[in-house]
């Protein structure tokens, strides 16, 4: 159940992250590396704002780790774990 939840979250994250990080025409996948896409602190906050709007979660001071930001899949797993 949690696995399925994370997949759905990943799909939503891809929709939200694409305009922030992806070059036009690039297709993101759950395995896309956020670092390779050039993620910095400003873009990360943009993603946090997007997550708040989509999922009602505030992640800014949640203790999210660098490992959770490696890929869209890892971020989705983190977000999914926070959704109650």
């Amino acid at each position: 159940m949690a696995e399925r939840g994370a997949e759905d979250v990943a799909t939503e994250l891809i929709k939200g992250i694409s305009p922030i990080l992806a070059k036009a025409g690039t297709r993101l996948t759950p395995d896309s590396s956020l670092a390779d896409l050039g993620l910095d602190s400003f873009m990360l906050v943009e993603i946090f704002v997007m997550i708040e709007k989509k999922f009602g979660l505030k992640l800014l001071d949640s203790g999210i780790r660098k490992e959770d930001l490696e890929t869209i899949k890892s971020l989705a797993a983190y977000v999914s774990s926070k959704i109650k």
Partner: protein
Amino acid sequence: MRYLSGLDWVIASLDRAMKNRGSAGHSSQIVMVLDSIPDEAALRAGLAEFAGNFPVLRGRVARNWLNLAPYWETTAGRASPTLRVHGADGPVGGDQSALGDELEEIANARFENDWEHLAFDLVRGNDGKALFIMRFDHRLFDARGAGLYLEYLGRFLGGNRMPPDPGPRATEAPSGLTGWVKKFAAGKTVNRRMIALSGTPSRRLPELRALAEPTQALRPQRRAQRNVAPGRPRVMARFLPVTFDRATTARILDDAHARAGALMEMPYLLAAVIQSVHGLFAGKNIPGGGYVVPVTVDTRSPGDPVAEVFFNYASFLFFQAKDGDIPDRDALIRTIKGQMYDQVKEELPAKLAEVNYLMRIVPLSALGWLMNRFMGGRTWSFTFGYRGKPSYTSLQFMGAPVSGVFHLPRVPAPPGLGVFFDVFDGRMNAVLSWHDGVMDNGEARALVRDIAARLGS
């Protein structure tokens, strides 16, 4: 036609104001430390050949009098950037903070005329190493764009003889004369934020008399006079660069992640700098209740750098630290992060970019005054920048190993003071940039020492 964005126009205004006050204008430098000295003749020829591919380099700010929108006017002829060669008395490959005099002399040189926006210097050290310095006009390059130009130049000189196609945005951009409702609505958000920032009086260094009273010789009688001033400029930009080694950089980044969160280096560094600057300002008994600091954010489209080498693609976030916020670093970091979140949530950087379009109708001569009024007569305490991912990344330049790259950004005055960080090849650089006279050398060194001591601790 390549119309200028609102930010381009603001930069042009700053350039004009800085020149009127006696400085070399709004230009900055990228300094590359090379472990061997490149062939001068090949370098000179290569610089000219590469630049010849970009007609945009031979341009200047102009105004379309039909719609009042400013644009970039290019002229016939190939750009041929100058290369000056210097011999340093000592080594250049070691401690960059010892190179201040040499770098400042180069940094304060003026461009030859209003059509020149790029120039190079090669400094040969007696240690067999060299500094290769690119001096760029902010009207045509922002920091990231300048780094990209240098990156593509390096590839060209290294054997990839195909220059990048700068794409249509180098020569075409819309006039931005539509969507006025959206622009004015954006203005409400920006205005609200500026009012909130002006509530607490922010500290800033006193303006120099020289800045406030331009001499007769520098009053803009003619355009040519405004841009080609004889002799040494009266307002000297000063710089103090410091490079941290890999181990120290790793320790700083680990501390940043632990205290501020993953990828939150900017709030961490800014908090440390605010604490250090507070010490300087307190020592000078400067009145006020806190600090307001603008921080640049890059607004380029993701993943398409070639199309946006030329002109400016940035906006700003504004951070306020009141005196009560400052002593506790972790609380200060949380405050900065919270402000960042709020401003991103209200889309402040994008709205500021929209609002800047409204500024374009104002002549350059009046824009500085208007911007000051917009800010309620207040100015920033200092400027700050952090670029964790450099746009120049190659470790070889014309066959010479690149052992360091750092920026020397010039700050406008006011505020006359800025602190900038970037990272190259796993090593963090910090640069203190200030106007000669706003503090003395001892204060500058003490400030840099204090900042360094706070990082990673």
